[in-house]
């Protein structure tokens, strides 16, 4: 091309733009644990060769690695989903006291509407309780700009800086002008035990520094000295809105006449500026998704405003929702007579064709055991057709829950409970729980579903998969050796696609009077080592088929009941796991290559 395209904007995902901002700021280390909707930040950071990017075993480890990198003088970042911040909260709170050396940025991605999460927590509360400044972008350009600026602010104010995104910002592509990357600077390390060794004597002094810093940040924000902290759009003097993040975009769409005070810095707040804005409007409304975080702060400052009395605490907002609450609702004409259309049956997610979890869950379902579940693709085992999960709480919880059930009494329940956990989740927070079970003489059974990948979040490598974030070879954790070292003596290995073998092994494990571990190993059907042989896709022998539909009931996406009443295998989707051939009692489903 003859024209230089440098000036043309790129359309980047919010998460890509955060990675770009960190790159431009000269970030040296990025260590994160995946979690929707944060995962693509770290995946994109890995595309810049000069950044040392890694998947950590969990969010706490990731933040501690970044903190160490900052201490060592480089700029560093950790990214996580909202619940990941619960795991990383311990280092975060005290990192607020020590401050940093190289700039340290912590990105947290909230999920209003729970597109891919087990709760709807509002991570802004962490900024207040850990006493950290937090920025919130409303599009990809701001993702880049705020991230880039956050590193410098981290060094200026000697504090970790938080960036909070929500799913709609993280997963929307919007135009971005990229900037020139800065050099990666490694600052000298100077030993300073008063600042970095947090024992009571030192921490008491640091707490004073923390409070001074937060007051300084709020004051500097009020003085307009903090980039991206706020911007004001004047309106007709009637309605004034204070908002931030994606809610700002909905406000723009819904309330064009309103004056808008848009916050980029959501903690601490520029309260003098907000007070001044409040005086320019007749009615002041705070528009924020999830909790009344801004509203509480603003009301505490004695500023009269409305907020959650008008708008919900739940789910995502939208232009229509805001119009309904704050303006004349405009009724648009639809293309169809909607009332006369049939409702569409729901389409929840399902286990993929060839998913190794399916066979194991069919075995659990047949055994009618109580299943303490965990988080991953296998949580889908709680749904039809297997319904083989009784509880799912947070990552790593299955192991401790099964031990707790085991300890509560010698009931039928405790005798037939198993814990089920994925490989990545076991490494994340399952290992320490297994140590606890062995130490405290549990008789519980743990099934580790080792599909050689962190599946649910889109296939990230982990310490047991033998590859690193760049798909280069990495030391592969030996799960059997690890479990043995923990003190487990009853260890079983099984192929999860072999339903009968699973039933037998699990039954045996439950009966053993000590902690037993079953490792069900088979790679995820969507990774190279798990993709089935296309020459062996399943086909139907109609002469043998009785149309009993046993195969259809396993709910494989490759199998559908055809208009002729026979099961139909879609060869594009079939992954040759042959699970359906095992449930067919008539030998009608055959692996390709088999003689009919």
């Amino acid at each position: 091309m003859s024209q230089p395209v440098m000036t043309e904007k790129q359309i980047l995902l919010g998460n890509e733009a955060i990675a770009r901002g960190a790159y431009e700021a000269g970030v040296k280390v990025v260590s994160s644990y995946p979690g929707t909707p944060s995962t693509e930040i770290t995946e994109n950071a890995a595309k810049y060769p000069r950044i040392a990017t890694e998947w950590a075993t969990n969010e706490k480890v990731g933040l501690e690695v970044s903190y160490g990198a900052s201490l060592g003088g480089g700029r560093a970042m950790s990214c996580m989903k909202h619940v990941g911040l619960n795991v990383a909260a311990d280092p975060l709170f005290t990192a607020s006291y020590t401050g940093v050396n190289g700039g340290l940025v912590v990105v947290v991605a909230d999920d209003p509407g729970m597109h891919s999460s087990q709760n709807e927590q509002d991570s802004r509360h962490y900024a207040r309780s850990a006493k950290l400044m937090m920025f919130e972008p409303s599009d990809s350009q701001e993702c880049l700009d705020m991230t880039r600026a956050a590193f410098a602010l981290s060094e200026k104010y000697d504090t970790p800086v938080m960036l909070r995104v929500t799913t709609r910002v993280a997963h929307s592509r919007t135009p971005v002008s990229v900037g020139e990357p800065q050099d990666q600077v490694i600052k000298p390390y100077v030993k300073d035990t008063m600042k970095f060794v947090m024992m009571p004597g030192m921490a008491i002094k640091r707490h004073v520094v923390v409070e001074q810093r937060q007051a300084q940040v709020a004051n500097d924000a009020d003085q307009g000295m903090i980039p991206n902290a706020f911007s004001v759009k004047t309106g007709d003097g009637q309605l004034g809105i204070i908002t931030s993040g994606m809610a700002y975009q909905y406000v723009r769409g819904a309330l064009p006449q309103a004056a808008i005070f848009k916050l980029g810095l959501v903690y601490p707040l520029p309260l003098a500026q907000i007070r001044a804005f409040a005086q320019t409007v007749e009615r002041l409304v705070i528009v924020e998704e999830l909790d009344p975080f801004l509203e509480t702060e603003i009301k505490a400052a004695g500023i009269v405003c409305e907020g959650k009395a008008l708008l919900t605490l739940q789910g995502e907002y939208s232009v229509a929702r805001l119009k309904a609450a704050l303006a004349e609702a405009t009724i648009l004409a639809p293309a169809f007579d909607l009332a006369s259309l049939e409702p569409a049956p729901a389409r929840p997610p399902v286990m993929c064709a060839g998913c190794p979890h399916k066979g194991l869950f069919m075995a659990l379902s047949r055994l009618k055991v109580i299943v303490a579940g965990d988080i991953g693709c296998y949580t889908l085992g709680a749904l039809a057709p297997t319904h083989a999960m009784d509880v799912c709480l947070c990552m790593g919880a299955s192991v401790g829950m099964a031990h707790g059930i085991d300890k509560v009494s010698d009931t039928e329940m405790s005798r037939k409970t198993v814990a089920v956990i994925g490989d990545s989740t076991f490494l994340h927070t399952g290992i320490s729980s297994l140590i606890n079970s062995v130490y405290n003489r549990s008789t519980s059974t743990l099934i580790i579903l080792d599909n050689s990948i962190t599946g649910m979040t889109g296939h990230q490598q982990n310490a047991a998969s033998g590859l690193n974030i760049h798909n280069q070879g990495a030391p592969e954790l030996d799960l059997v050796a690890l479990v043995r070292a923990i003190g487990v003596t009853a260890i079983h290995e099984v192929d999860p696609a072999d339903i009968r073998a699973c039933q037998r092994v699990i039954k045996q494990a439950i009966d053993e009077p000590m902690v037993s571990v079953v490792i069900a190993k088979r790679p995820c059907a969507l990774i190279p080592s798990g993709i089935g042989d296309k020459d062996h896709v399943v086909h139907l022998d109609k002469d043998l088929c009785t149309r009993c539909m046993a195969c259809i009931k396993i709910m494989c996406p490759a199998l559908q009941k055809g208009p002729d009443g026979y099961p139909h295998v879609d060869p594009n989707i079939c992954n040759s796991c042959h699970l359906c051939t095992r449930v067919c009692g008539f030998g009608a489903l055959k692996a390709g290559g088999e003689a009919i």
Partner: protein
Amino acid sequence: MNQAISLNIALVGVGGQGTLVAGKLLGTVATILGLEVKVSEVHGMSQRGGSVITYVRMAEHVASPIIEPAEADFVLAFEELEALRWAYLLKAGGSMMVNTMQTLPASVAIGAAAYPQDIIEALDSKTIGNSHVFAVDAQKLADEAGSYKATNIVMLGAMSRLTPIDEKVFTQAIDRVFPEKFRAINHKAFQSGSDIIKYTCEF
């Protein structure tokens, strides 16, 4: 002329059907046109065979990335049931392109729910105003172009006929989004989608 273009396009389907790539391509189209664009995607859980939607909004100025009910100029449905599910997004006078394929949701497969009959005919008979429903056997056309994976691009080709956007802009976007080795297939898929609408409508 570009200032006049303002399009809301909803790409709906089943996780894994290529709505993300189609959204990215439309984002690139908007950039070439010098328009502001927002593409809102679904990642994570629903990509496991759930119902998914990608919203594309392009105009001189775009605030919210979400298309509200009866705000879409186009709904591109990659599966029939999803066409029905998201029909409320289409505005009067808008066009819906439906890939003629059915993927049974799990509830239907096990007999707990029924897959609605003749969805395309039902939609077509319930239009208000000058709205249109087009049935496109996009997967077949994609197969013929070289890969069923280009189904999404056939759908874009079909829609392109009904937009004021020059076909060359789409061609350029395909070149930017796809690596060299996939370009020929996607150009072919796009063309066949475009042709099918050319021959079915007397525009």
